[in-house]
């Protein structure tokens, strides 16, 4: 099993509903976020292009955060989801420093926190909170090893990219372009 998420940059309107849903679902402390929206304006005037992306932990297959964690608190969970065990984390911040996506932060309680793909919901057969609330239905989540899953189907059909593939982390967050 290999969980992945695909986000349609053509359909995302940047409403930040995913951000609020995540904060509510995961009790994210005020002032922090596990997912966020990025707007990229690119080109030469007047030929400009804008891309809107909802970003979060990339749940890399070759995660530098898991590799550098000195206590094993950062680890691969079910379906390759990258997780942090709270009471194993010493808050040394090595994983934060090692993440090219800057997807992690220090929770006010001291341990490092980040997106979990809402594993607690996924285990119950639900979609991650961000996917469930998206008003434009621009997010797809599922098992890449299952050719009939929503995410596998859409990645077969559409052109896509990952962020900073050259960092060699094999991200599992895909952006449809």
């Amino acid at each position, binding site marked *: 099993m290999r969980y992945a998420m695909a986000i349609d940059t053509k359909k995302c309107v940047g409403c930040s509903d995913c951000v609020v849903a995540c904060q509510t679902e995961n009790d994210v402390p005020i002032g922090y976020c596990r997912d966020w929206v990025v707007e990229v304006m690119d080109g030469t005037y007047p030929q400009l292009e804008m891309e809107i992306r909802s970003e979060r932990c990339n749940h890399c297959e070759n995660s530098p955060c898991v590799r550098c964690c000195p206590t094993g608190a950062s680890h691969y969970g079910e379906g390759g989801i990258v997780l942090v065990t709270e009471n194993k984390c010493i*808050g040394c911040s090595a994983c934060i420093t090692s993440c090219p996506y*800057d997807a992690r932060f220090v929770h006010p309680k001291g341990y490092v926190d980040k997106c979990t793909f809402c594993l607690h919901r996924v285990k119950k057969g639900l979609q991650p909170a961000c996917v469930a609330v998206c008003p434009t239905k621009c997010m797809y989540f599922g098992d890449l090893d299952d050719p009939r899953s929503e995410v596998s189907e859409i990645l077969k059909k559409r052109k896509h990219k990952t962020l900073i593939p050259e960092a*060699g982390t094999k991200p599992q967050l895909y952006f449809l372009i």
Partner: protein
Amino acid sequence: MREEIIVSGRNNPLIDPQLHIWHWEIPTYLFLGGLAAGLLFFAALYYLRGKESEYSTAVKIAPMLAPIALVLGLIALFLDLHHKLYFWRLYTTIKLESPMSWGAWTLMLVTPLSMLWCALHIKELFPKWDWKFDIIKDVLAFFEKQKIVLAWIMLISSAILGIYTGILFSAFNARPLWNTSILGPLFLASGLSAGSAITIWLSKNHDERKRFAQLDLMIIGVELFLIVHMFMGFLASSQVQIEAANLFLGGPYTAPFWIFVVILGMIVPAILEILELRKFKIPVVIPVVLVLFGSLMLRFIIAYAGQASRWLY
């Protein structure tokens, strides 16, 4: 003009607008760890070369500072942890892929070893020292017989500690400025330089001071070579590393790096040491303090600038 404007909704504390997760604690610890590594390396080296009485400061007296530096460094490291009460978790796991795990276990070996080395030589500094308990005397007598083995372990483990202080940074692919294998040898050299500077300072023996001044000169030469090498590597690499190097080549860290680290921390003390070797009267404290200052600044500037370097997307 082609432009890319990125607006991010993320504003996590210590992450945005720029990563600022490691503050003074880490570079301070890396300096103290490197200094201790330098002191212990020379103590072991000159003991093994049979120069115990000739270079008695290096072998017996200067290493007294090593456990103090290591303990202070460990306190700094502890202060850096956000989840402090779980620090012991470092010692319930061995993770070969994690430089920090390597460092934790190396320190677990080096710190008691440095204390043992001091215990074996404390009478040099305090002739009336008495351990009071026979058991301590027996243990020390045992290690006194094993001193060659002890020195070998210390030589190797202090070199690992010195290299680790740099590898800790260079293992992070996510920060292009740190992601160079030069940092390991560069920080080792910087630690050795700081160690030899302390020995010059403490020594009252003219020959020993001369030898360590020569050593320090050689090490400074190696450091300068490594710094040039580092920039050549960056400039011949990918765009992110070129931009990382530019932080020091015209960017915001240019003045502090070249003035504090290279000129004041390496070139000026090297010139002063050359003059001293040529029999000019130079107060020894000046080059020594400059070398220590340069070694500390190297860690601070690399730590802060590294967090300002990033991948672009």
